[in-house]
């Protein structure tokens, strides 16, 4: 009985083991390249926070309480999303020697990139949370705050995974997808309420922001730092859209992965 179980290991279990091993590899490889490898995950948004914070608070005179904390809370998840997506998209081509030489579920390649960046995001989020606990000015760490953070992180992970599967798969067949994604991420950053709250957008233009599947996630992430509301029905539609993106990503990836070898 035991032997049978061992030999006929379920595919999903092997997929999970392989995905975890590759994610660990991604994380370890990052540490080994630079001593400060991990610290950059935290330093990057800090620098961004100072630059954007300076521009908006002093030059444009934005009046948001604790603007730098508000900014930082949005920059951390944004950096996860943009880094994971842009690094995962060309990854199958980079790993072509592997893809052309061994048979394994190819989805582990983009997904391990996404998961390793998610791990870094979680670490930096915990550092940020510790800062919030000890910071005398903020009383953010309520149960609602944590639930909101947790749910939006999961949604962001689902969306990033689905979108990365889609982009990395199509990039094998059309190499310009990579450039398209880089440009898209640049525009997307300003089109998402991260450096500004959604409430500063005039209500007649808000409909455009509702079409952005990330607007709900980022509004909820930053809810603890500024009073802003997001319509529940729109949020629900976005959640459905996010899960559809994942399903579409999985479906297209599955149907296309058998042709990867021909194009690499």
């Amino acid at each position, binding site marked *: 009985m035991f032997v049978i179980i*061992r030999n006929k*290991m379920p595919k999903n*279990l*092997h997929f999970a*083991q*392989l995905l975890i*091993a*590759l994610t*660990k*590899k991604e994380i*370890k*490889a990052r540490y*080994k*390249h630079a001593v400060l490898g991990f610290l950059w995950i935290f330093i990057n948004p800090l620098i961004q926070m100072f630059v954007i914070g300076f521009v908006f608070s002093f030059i444009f005179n934005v009046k948001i309480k604790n603007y730098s904390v508000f900014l930082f809370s949005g920059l951390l998840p944004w950096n996860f999303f943009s880094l994971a997506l842009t690094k995962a998209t060309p990854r199958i081509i980079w790993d072509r*020697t*592997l*893809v*052309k*030489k*061994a*048979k*394994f579920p190819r989805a582990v390649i983009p997904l391990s990139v996404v998961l390793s960046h998610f791990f870094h995001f979680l670490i930096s989020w915990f550092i940020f949370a510790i800062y919030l606990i000890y910071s005398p000015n903020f009383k953010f760490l309520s149960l609602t705050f944590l639930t909101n953070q947790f749910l939006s992180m999961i949604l962001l992970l689902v969306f990033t995974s689905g979108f990365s599967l889609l982009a990395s798969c199509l990039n094998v*067949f*059309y*190499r*310009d*997808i990579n450039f398209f994604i880089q440009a898209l991420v640049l525009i997307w950053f300003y089109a998402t309420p991260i450096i500004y709250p959604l409430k500063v957008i005039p209500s007649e233009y808000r409909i455009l922001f509702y079409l952005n599947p990330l607007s709900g996630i980022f509004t909820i992430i930053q809810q603890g730092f500024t009073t802003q509301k997001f319509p529940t029905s729109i949020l629900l539609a976005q959640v459905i859209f996010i899960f559809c993106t994942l399903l579409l990503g999985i479906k297209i990836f599955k149907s296309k992965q*058998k*042709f990867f*070898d*021909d*194009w690499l």
Partner: protein
Amino acid sequence: MKKNLAVKLSQISKKYYLHHDKPTLIESIFSRKEEFWALSNINLEIKTGSKIGIIGPNGAGKSTLLKIITGIATPTKGKVNTQGKIASLIDVEAGFHPDLSGKDNIYLNGLLLGMSKYALDEKFNKIVNFSGIGKFVNAPLHTYSSGMKLRLGFSVAVFSDPDILIIDEIISAGDEEFQRKSFQKMKSFFKDDKTIIFASHNLAEIKQLCPITVYISRGQIKSKGQTKKVITNYLNNQS
């Protein structure tokens, strides 16, 4: 598929498109495609436990055929049936990462070859012993000599315990001693009911290892049967 068959290929054809540059979305809309058939109408049955050699000139379609059997490439037409676990020794170093230790790389490579974590835990010591890397097991892979890397990759593949082992020229890499050692090991390791499919230009090795050989040229099977006859046929065609 019959019980005693390891691989059955029915009317396999593989078409590739020739790209002059990187494939892009723009190109796919505007430019015409040039076709190229790497394999056409291949029918092949490989019995379980047989050791079969594949020979043919460069560009004959040997590697494409091996990739199709392994499942890395998908045939344009035809059907592939395989029975049992397949491991391919096409390039054992492909799954290695230079910054990780030998141990990490054994696990990573083993998982990529389809082994479970449990099986790797169980066979870890055997893999290390067989590869002869010794104390280097905890050192990062970039400190290894190329021979050590080769031995490590080979050991993982051998201990992944496949039913069908696919080898593409692997033995001709590495130093002479390792070639001999791995060749001997392979012979003893797969004496039993395992199937070996072995593509090589080294006719002496093919003669020694495989009783049956398939000769491929321009994507088609030219002849198939007893190795001696097939090799004679191949050499006559070459000259």
